[in-house]
């Protein structure tokens, strides 16, 4: 029983000794390496060994002559991450770790601009998000200034500069008051990326119709339908005419054509005719008051 315990204690001491050796090993490791940069690892001892660099992003295995310095060429380690280094050879195993960091210079931007189409004059209506990547597609976690610019068909461009945090920068901008395509650009260093944002007219600001008798019919026609900034509401927008008369109701949906909607409805004496589009109500006409 006692000999068993002694053996067990010996094993623990041996394991602790191995651990101490591993932790105090003389692997000459850099603390950090920039992605793609050349670096070297110094080994001690004699004989042959194998060096492993292990991480989810990359793995390397090199045969080494212990005591020599192992050189890694530019590009050998290109994926940012935390790497475990293991050197086996002789009677012991040494290990350590180092980090590969992204190249600080942005090479690629992942630029998400939303929405691609929105009404004019919308406060904070456009959002831009940029993830900054280096040449090896590593996320650049170093704070990086990113400038956003939205230039439309009229007016001065809107510009914001945001410093990225954890590799991401974002902003929100207003849509312009004039319809048309706007260019949304993100820039980090020398890298730019562009998106086109279509700014379309907003809801009609006011809706007014006129009525004209034509035999047993009434000719109904709206004035040009525009949004509150004066932009013409797109053709195809549905305008609804409703006629309520004694004991009945008629409804006609008409698409806008060249800013105007027109239709004809039966002329009922005492009828009330109204017009609407979307949530906007127009004027009301009472025909042939009794």
């Amino acid at each position, binding site marked *: 029983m006692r000999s068993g315990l002694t053996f067990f204690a010996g094993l623990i001491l041996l394991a602790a000794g191995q651990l101490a050796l591993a932790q105090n090993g003389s692997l000459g490791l850099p603390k950090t390496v920039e992605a793609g940069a050349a670096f070297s690892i110094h080994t001690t001892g004699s004989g042959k060994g194998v060096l*492993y660099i292990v991480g989810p992003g990359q793995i390397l295995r090199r045969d080494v002559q212990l005591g020599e310095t192992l050189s890694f060429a530019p590009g050998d380690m290109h994926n940012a991450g935390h790497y475990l280094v293991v050197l086996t050879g002789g009677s012991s195993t040494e290990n350590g770790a180092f980090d590969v960091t992204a190249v600080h210079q942005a090479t690629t931007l992942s630029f998400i601009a939303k929405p691609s189409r929105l009404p004019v004059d919308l406060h904070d209506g456009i959002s831009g998000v940029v993830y900054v990547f280096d040449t090896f*597609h590593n996320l650049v976690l170093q704070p990086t200034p990113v400038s956003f610019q939205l230039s439309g068909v009229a007016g001065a461009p809107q510009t914001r500069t945001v410093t990225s945090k954890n590799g991401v920068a974002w902003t929100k901008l207003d849509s312009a008051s004039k319809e048309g395509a706007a260019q949304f650009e993100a820039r980090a260093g020398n890298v730019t990326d562009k998106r086109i944002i279509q700014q379309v007219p907003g809801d009609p600001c006011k809706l007014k119709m006129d009525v004209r008798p034509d035999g047993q019919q009434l000719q109904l026609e709206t004035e040009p339908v525009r949004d509150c900034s004066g932009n013409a509401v797109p053709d195809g927008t549905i305008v609804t005419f409703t006629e309520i008369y004694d004991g009945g109701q008629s409804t006609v949906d008409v698409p806008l054509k060249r800013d105007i909607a027109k239709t004809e409805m039966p002329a009922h004496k005492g009828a009330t005719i109204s017009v609407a589009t979307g949530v906007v109500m127009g004027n009301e006409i009472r025909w042939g008051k009794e």
Partner: protein
Amino acid sequence: MTRRIQKPILIACSVMAALFVGASGQPTVRVEPTDSVGPRTLEKQTETAVVRDYLQAWHSLSAALEQNRTDLVNTDFVGTAKEKLSDTIQEQTKLGIQTRYVDKAHDVQLVFYSPEGLSIQLVDTVDYDVQLIDHEKPQITQHVRARYVAVLTPTEVQWKVRVFQAEPE
């Protein structure tokens, strides 16, 4: 007689069950309060789904790197993260190496939820063990603590990891 045998069997089964649970024990997970995540409001359901899918991604990563199977990363990774992991698996296969990642603890902090809801970023301080196996011979098992930055994007049914990168603590 039968009753006398049953009791030891029951105890043995319980011990085995406890060992099994211990061996396949889930990592401890701590999620920092998400009050300040923005700019988009983060609903509790979204938070739960993101953390669940991220932890599942670790599970897939572990299995894929241990079995050297690139198909296992398809479910939970996408884009750059998937490509880089697949490259590592292919390299491991070529070298005759397997790595076993066993995550022990996660301290997750959701840090960014994009305005349009198309990406979410988290930072995770992970404690995990890495075992290196070269031609089926275990070389070393090492405990690692690292800070990971992950960006997840939504797909039809789940969040997938698009960026997965450790940074110096």
